[in-house]
């Protein structure tokens, strides 16, 4: 069966408008968590502190679990 190539109807103006939003950080994509992450140094710092804490906890010998996990969270295997 032959495929008929469909030409995208995106206009130059639409692309420029979307790019302008991106340049200003107002594009919906920038509002997603990953978009916020890459733009926000504090967010990145907080994630690093959390990641380091988790890493440190993993390596702590004989760590005991005293916290009660919130509902829906998994216990470590």
């Amino acid at each position, binding site marked *: 069966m032959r495929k008929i190539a469909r*030409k*995208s*109807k*995106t*206009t*130059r103006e*639409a*692309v*420029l408008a*979307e*790019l*302008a939003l*991106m*340049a200003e950080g107002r*594009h919906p*994509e*920038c509002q*997603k*968590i*990953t*978009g916020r992450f*890459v733009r926000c140094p504090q967010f990145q710092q907080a994630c690093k502190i959390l990641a380091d804490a*988790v890493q440190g*906890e*993993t*390596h*702590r010998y*004989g*760590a*005991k*679990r005293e*916290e009660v*996990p919130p509902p*829906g*969270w*998994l*216990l*470590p*295997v």
Partner: protein
Amino acid sequence: MGQASGVILPKLDGAPVEYRLSAEDPRAIKLAQTLTTLGLAEPGDWDEAKRSPTNYVQAALKRWLVSHGGEQVRENFALNAMISSSPNLYSGDDGCRELLYLMVDPDSAGYMILGPTLEMLEVIHPRLPASFYHLLVGAIQRWVRMYDYRDALERVEMLREWAEGESDPEQYEFPDVEGCIPRSMKLKPLALKHVRQLAVGINDQLSRQLVQAALDLNEISRRLRRPEISEETREALMDSNPPLPALLISFKRHDAVLACYDDESQAFLEACPEPNLIVEIDPTDQPGVRRAFDTLAVLCETMAAASRLAALLPGNNQEG
């Protein structure tokens, strides 16, 4: 069995399995805007590029290459064009934060054997072989690095100097580059005007086509000059090796030039090589972006013309 660490992990049910990270470099967004404004990017590619400025710029670059003979270049050369945030891909140095860098580099060198062509042209005029050679080499060297008998002579000279420092220099043998250069190559090339006049009157069809192809190649390669790079970019490339050759020219298959190339190529990647072409791009500067793309177009068209010429060379595509 391992000991539990005490870390509690959240369940990931319902969490998206893929995030499309729009960590777009602001320079890529600006360049995408400029390319769209200049009509160098095709808005129809936006959706296909998943609305990513980086992918969209890449699509524009690809289209540009195709429309300037990219397919023909690929028949004889393995060149890559890219737009990078750093002039030095190996150092991780970010370069200037306002600029992007358009770069062209080969994956491997194309190969031309010119001996049979030079013999054929010598019959027409004794100085035509040297004229043909210099037209061809001059045009290509304007845009990419090539390796020929002059590099091979330098290599042998260097090897001789090294050997002289040894206790028994006679034990070394060197490729006879001088001996493999055709006598016709030692003659002075004809003036361009003379070659043009001569080309019109050549009766042999293949010889005429070859000379005409070299004249065309010369003309195309001169459409623009290579842009200069800034001191800052030059510094970033200070410790680099010379660019990788995009073309090797020898006179016969397996001659001394090829032997020198094989030997020297072992060290090509000992340090990161300089790009063959590097053009600095300020993504907000419309005339500058236009110039950078025009420069790439001339390089592409030059290499496409070289590819057409390579297809005509007698004995160039024989195996063995």
